[in-house]
């Protein structure tokens, strides 16, 4: 983009423009990121798929009414038909409606764990990296220790100890999901705290909290968005795994993992509609989140290069 293409500049431009050189005019960081994002076809594709799945799960039930609480044994294991487009479950509940209900809890868990895990990891990592010394050593050894317990064993242990409902599942998955973020954030904080603007800010007498909140955290946004997105994918998969192991929330609540588990149990009875629709939904969702995460990480890198 050259100077000539731009509308009349507001404010002052830098005084010296090199002869024949092109001047890149600063635009807001957000606009820059958004442009790079929209240029990335994969990112847009992933986001579109996710929007469709959210609509399916949350708006779908408003249009397509089913009873997902009462069991109806006359209708058990029905093959797909006009009244039940995707057949029925072993309890006689409509499978299409069940997929919507299952999608709700699956997406809720994924998003909640992504957000909570990121926030906890951010707080832990910034404190460890910024304070340093013994505090850092102790905090990071705790992270190392928890990371070295294979996560599914840790999750099964926690889920077996406490009766599972959606909130417990979210907390249990958050308990393992924040660890990797804490490590990454600590590493970034270590490099950010030596930057000139941080040193300057401290020279002006800014408190540790202000420096951490105002100068370090905003610079972590790119890393956090990417790791948070990938965390959502991991959380959905982990939720499916613990549900498959029978440690998810009990019926009539459901999620895609529990539905997969039912479908697998009835695999040899030939009730394909109980397995494959849920399988396709979960793979497509996780794939879309992963593609989005990869694309966002490209966006974060490209944005830095454009500056």
């Amino acid at each position, binding site marked *: 983009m050259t100077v000539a293409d731009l509308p009349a500049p507001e404010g002052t431009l830098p005084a010296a423009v090199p002869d024949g050189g092109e001047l890149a005019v600063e635009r807001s960081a957000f606009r820059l990121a958004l442009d790079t994002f929209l240029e990335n076809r994969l990112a847009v594709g992933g986001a579109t798929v996710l929007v469709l799945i959210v609509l399916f799960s949350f708006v779908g039930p408003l249009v397509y009414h089913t009873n997902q609480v009462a069991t109806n044994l006359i209708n058990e294991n029905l093959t797909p038909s006009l009244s039940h487009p995707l057949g029925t479950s072993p309890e006689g509940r409509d499978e299409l409606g069940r997929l919507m209900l299952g999608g709700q809890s699956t997406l809720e868990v994924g998003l909640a764990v992504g957000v909570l895990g990121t926030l906890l990891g951010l707080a832990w990592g910034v404190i460890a990296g910024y304070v340093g010394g013994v505090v850092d050593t102790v905090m990071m050894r705790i992270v190392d*220790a928890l990371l*070295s*317990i*294979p*996560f599914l064993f840790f999750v099964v242990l926690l889920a077996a100890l406490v009766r599972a409902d959606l909130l417990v599942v979210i907390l249990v998955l958050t308990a393992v999901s924040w660890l990797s973020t804490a490590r990454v954030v600590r590493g970034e904080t270590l490099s950010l705290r030596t930057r000139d603007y941080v040193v300057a800010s401290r020279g002006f007498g800014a408190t540790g909290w202000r420096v951490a909140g105002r100068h370090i955290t905003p610079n972590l946004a790119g890393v956090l968005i990417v790791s948070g997105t990938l965390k959502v994918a991991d959380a959905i998969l982990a939720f499916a795994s613990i549900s498959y192991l029978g440690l998810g929330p009990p019926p009539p609540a459901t999620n895609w993992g529990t539905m997969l588990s039912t479908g*697998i149990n009835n*695999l040899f009875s030939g009730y394909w509609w109980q397995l494959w629709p849920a399988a396709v939904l979960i*793979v497509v969702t996780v794939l879309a989140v992963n593609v989005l995460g990869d694309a966002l990480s490209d966006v974060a890198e490209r944005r830095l290069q454009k500056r």
Partner: protein
Amino acid sequence: MTAYIVRRLGQAVIVVLIVTVVVFGLLHALPGGLVRAQLGPKATPYAVHQFTIQEGLNKPLVVQYGIWLWHAVQGNLGFSYKLNQSVGSLLAEYVPRTLLLAGSAFLLSVAIAIPLGLWQGQRRNRPDDHALSALMLTFYSMPSFLLGVILIVVLSLWIPALPSTASAFGSGLGTDVRVLVLPVATLCLGNVSYFSRYMRASTIDNLLADHVRTARAKGVAPRRVLLRHVLRNSVSSTVTVLGLSIPYVLSGALIIEALFNFPGVGLLFWNAAQDRDYPVLLGVVLVITVATIVGNLAADIAYAALDPRIRYR
């Protein structure tokens, strides 16, 4: 190098201690407590009292932890009342099977992922690379048990070539090794999708590195550039990922063992979790965590050996 190993070893011991504190604390902070879980809801107050005394559960938690740790160091991990067997002998029975399952899947997947990633890196952004990347990302986005189910449907239901359950494994002499094929293949595909992504990315990084350009400019044969300058550097950075992936591989083994009914440590753990068999839960977590930490340590040392720059950090 020795100083580096000693320092890492010290860290590893501390990490193991923290894990034991966390797990021990979790198990003993339970509502309802250990006694009820072991004896069941119908136990008489007298039996509860006796069991409490016998197991030392009336002692302060710190003392209990000390006793447990002291016994654990000596190799005594307690006794499972549910299975009427010592935890040590249970582990001796189940751990080797999981090692065989997870270990062979791990080695196989490394043997596949490294050449695959190297090849994809060379062919980056061509249609075949895109197709393979998409396939790998799909495997990566799939719950591992679903991958197993797909293999069962194809190789056990459609083409009845392989057994869909491995429950008979290790139960007697002359076990049919065919039962291992599907569980190993499932774990292996999952791992390959994870490792090859890293290998591809680090191959691309290295192909663009200055030393590779220099080597090419010197007129080094392309094959030699690939093997000496690209492969070596890519592998050494992938080694760290391999080390860090051990918990992931073991987690995968847990769910695959549940799917195929494979009598390994994952299945033992899952059953113990459902039965609230605390001595087994504690013992399994301790052993697999130590295994993970030793694996990480080995990967770090291998990395330092492959890449001298690391040692002096």
